């Protein structure tokens, strides 16, 4: 039995869909951020799988950049959540509707 690229792509698709579902059903801001990290990781699996099966190195370098962006995103996202918590005493995203009023 040989592992093909489809094995990795299917795993990535499942993880990405779970991450999407997490972003949509949860209201806690931090869990939404975690789901976004999960989606980014699913994409990284795809990039590394294509890179290795094409015998190239480009995908792995792209993963490197995705990780840098994910780190920046997590830092800024968490800082925003902390500021929101100081204003609202909650990180429930359904309560962040100041611009709607």
């Amino acid at each position, binding site marked *: *039995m040989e592992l093909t690229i489809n094995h*990795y792509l299917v795993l990535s*698709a499942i993880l990405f869909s*779970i991450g999407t579902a*997490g972003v*949509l059903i949860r209201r806690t801001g931090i869990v939404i951020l975690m789901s976004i990290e999960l989606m980014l990781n699913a994409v990284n699996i795809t990039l590394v799988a294509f890179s290795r099966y094409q015998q*190239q190195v480009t995908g792995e370098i792209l993963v*490197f950049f995705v990780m840098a962006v994910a780190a920046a995103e997590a*830092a800024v996202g968490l800082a925003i959540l902390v500021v929101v918590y100081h204003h609202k005493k909650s990180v429930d995203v359904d309560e962040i509707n100041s611009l709607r009023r």
Partner: protein
Amino acid sequence: MESLIKPAAFYFFSAVAVVTAIMVIVKRNPVTSGINLVLTFCSISAIYVLLNSQFIAVIQVLVYAGAIMVLIIFVIMLLNLRPVESIMDKSTGVRIAAIFVFVTALGVSLAAILTSGGISGRSGGITDEFLAKTGTIQVISRSLFSEYLLPFELTSLLLTVAIIGVVILAKGMKVRKKTGPGSE
């Protein structure tokens, strides 16, 4: 025997990754979600090892399971978040939309993967035998510091901007507090 270990390891780590990923989104306590996400990241790191891409596997553990998750769990503890009563407390419309998007995203991507005829195109020539001789770090860094030098330098700019943004967000909080309530 040798040909059985790799698929067995792949299925084991994939199962761990998928189960812990589901745990991340269904657990009511954010701390439990965070711990499960660490397990997901470690299993994904094992998947990278199976793909013979050890550098990315190490970076995955260092950056995701190490830095990002410590930051997230630190913020959860700082904010003292309580477990929510229910994870499905959105309106019915949003709930239906979430299930619809989940099924569509999974279905479309699985259909696309399973009906495709495999990969085509030019092979880069970096085979597993070549990597066994030179190592992944050398191959990646040679490409990173020549072909992709500009994106690499722009990444440092991005991280600087992120640091400045975070500092401004944290500072702004103090300034607003000093001027008192009702000043916004």
